[in-house]
């Protein structure tokens, strides 16, 4: 009924690889945003792949659409799955019950990831130094390996301890606390944090005059919720509006130039 040491270690290692983003680089996007692969690994390690897949499919459903605009995510699905799948497999929970475990763990995981970004803040000073010295090996060290190490130092022990000793505790905790205030608070925070990444991107785009287009899109989406319009459709509508705006501007300027010339001619 408990996770064996080697099992806890292998799963923790996988999570560390994913969350330090070193496993196939950008390919970790899907590894991190979705619980599927992590669930599969947990299943392989714990010797029940098929059941693990069924559990993680249920977890995936609550994370449909989750990703990280501007660096923020409401929850960390990979971590959620790494804990919830073993809990469910060992505790013999139904897929639906695994979801109750996944949600709070995912929310906590999101903070751990943010902490990684915070720690990397210090690493970047090293990068600056190596750049000054044109030390390419040092740059690779500080840009790739130290951040990876930081990621490992953060996620490996945390996940290992959680899996080795926490599984029964979590299982009990979740059962007795679901629906309580603490869960409500975690959910609210998770739902609101996405705003940071979005605000960051708006700020970074930096064209204040064009913020009405942000608002237009926002309220269009709210107004048309019932029509289930897809994101790609919106992207096309946005492109069209952007094009028409710029076109109108350019054509007006050309028209002004033409009028200007022809009125110059009159004199």
């Amino acid at each position: 009924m408990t996770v064996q040491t080697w099992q806890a270690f292998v799963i923790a290692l996988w999570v560390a690889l994913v969350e330090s983003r070193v496993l196939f680089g950008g390919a970790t996007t899907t590894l991190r945003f979705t619980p599927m692969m992590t669930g599969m690994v947990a299943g392989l390690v714990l010797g029940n792949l098929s059941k693990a897949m069924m559990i993680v499919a249920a977890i995936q459903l609550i994370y449909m659409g989750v990703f990280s605009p501007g660096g923020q995510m409401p929850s960390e699905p990979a971590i959620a799955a790494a804990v919830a799948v073993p809990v469910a497999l060992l505790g013999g929970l139904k897929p639906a019950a695994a979801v109750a475990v996944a949600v709070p763990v995912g929310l906590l995981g999101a903070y751990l990831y943010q902490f990684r970004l915070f720690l990397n803040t210090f690493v970047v000073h090293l990068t600056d130094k190596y750049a000054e010295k044109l030390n390419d090996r040092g740059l690779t060290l500080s840009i790739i390996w130290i951040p990876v190490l930081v990621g490992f130092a953060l996620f490996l022990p945390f996940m290992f301890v959680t899996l080795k000793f926490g599984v029964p505790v979590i299982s009990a905790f979740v059962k007795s606390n679901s629906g309580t205030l603490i869960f409500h608070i975690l959910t609210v925070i998770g739902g609101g944090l996405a705003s940071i990444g979005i605000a960051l991107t708006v700020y970074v785009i930096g064209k204040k005059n064009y913020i009405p287009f942000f608002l237009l899109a926002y309220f269009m989406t709210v107004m048309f919720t019932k029509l289930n319009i897809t994101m790609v459709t919106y992207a096309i509508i946005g492109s069209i509006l952007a094009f028409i705006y710029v076109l109108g501007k350019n054509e007006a300027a050309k028209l002004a130039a033409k009028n200007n010339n022809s009125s110059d001619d009159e004199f």
Partner: protein
Amino acid sequence: MDKEISTQKPVAKGAPEKVTNRDIFRAWIRFYFADEIPHSFDRYIAPALMWALMPILRKLYKDEDQLKAAYKRHLLFFNTQISWGGGVLTGIMASLEQTRAQETYENKELTITDDLIYNTKAGLMGALAGIGDSIDSGTVQYIFIAIALPWAQQGSAIGAIFPFVAFSVYQVLIGWYFARTGFKLGRKAATDIVGGSQMQGIIEGLSILGLFMMGILAANYVKVTSSLQWTLSGKKFELQEILNTVLPGLLPLVVVGGVYFYFVKRGLKVTRALIGLTVILGVLAAIGIL
């Protein structure tokens, strides 16, 4: 940002080597690999871009000071989405640096100034992030997942492997395409940006589109509702219900707007915003308002 226009004409040390399509491919793959490994709150993924461009910069600048300056140029704050933003900007940056290196070497007046390079990067990174996030992470990724989910539900590992492989391949390929296009475009753009209005129009258009997509994301993605309710003479009131009759979507917008104005007033202090928002939301949730 347009304050300093560095028109120093240094003495040439060695001719820049030609940047080939192989170099672009390599830079793109390096970027793809590094991407969010060095993610940090104050520079975001700038080191990844710098590391991606390193081999190219080495080929271009044979003068140590020039090279140092180039390295530093690409360590300034940078954030974007991996395939659209990363692809396009890896290509454009390579192209701009190449022209600049040539100008430097030939002792010409610099048309590709520090400011121009940074402004091009800053002008596009956010817009392309908005677009790329919604299309790649928000749509394409979840299409693959939706396709594969049933397999998972039947207990098959293919349900996990297929979306992972498919999406990764997709991103590598389109990113590569974008990098090459960016490289080609950049060469022309380099001169265009200085005087012309075409590139200006493209940046404006992309900014509008980027902001537009952030609006879509905000509406779909930020979830803040009030759970406040009270009973007066036996009648139950829910604040959220009342808000919905006035302006649905008000609360999430207030939160996004609040964080945005915090950044405008205080600069890009992400950690603080994160902690502050956590505390505020937590307290409001605890006392039953949210």
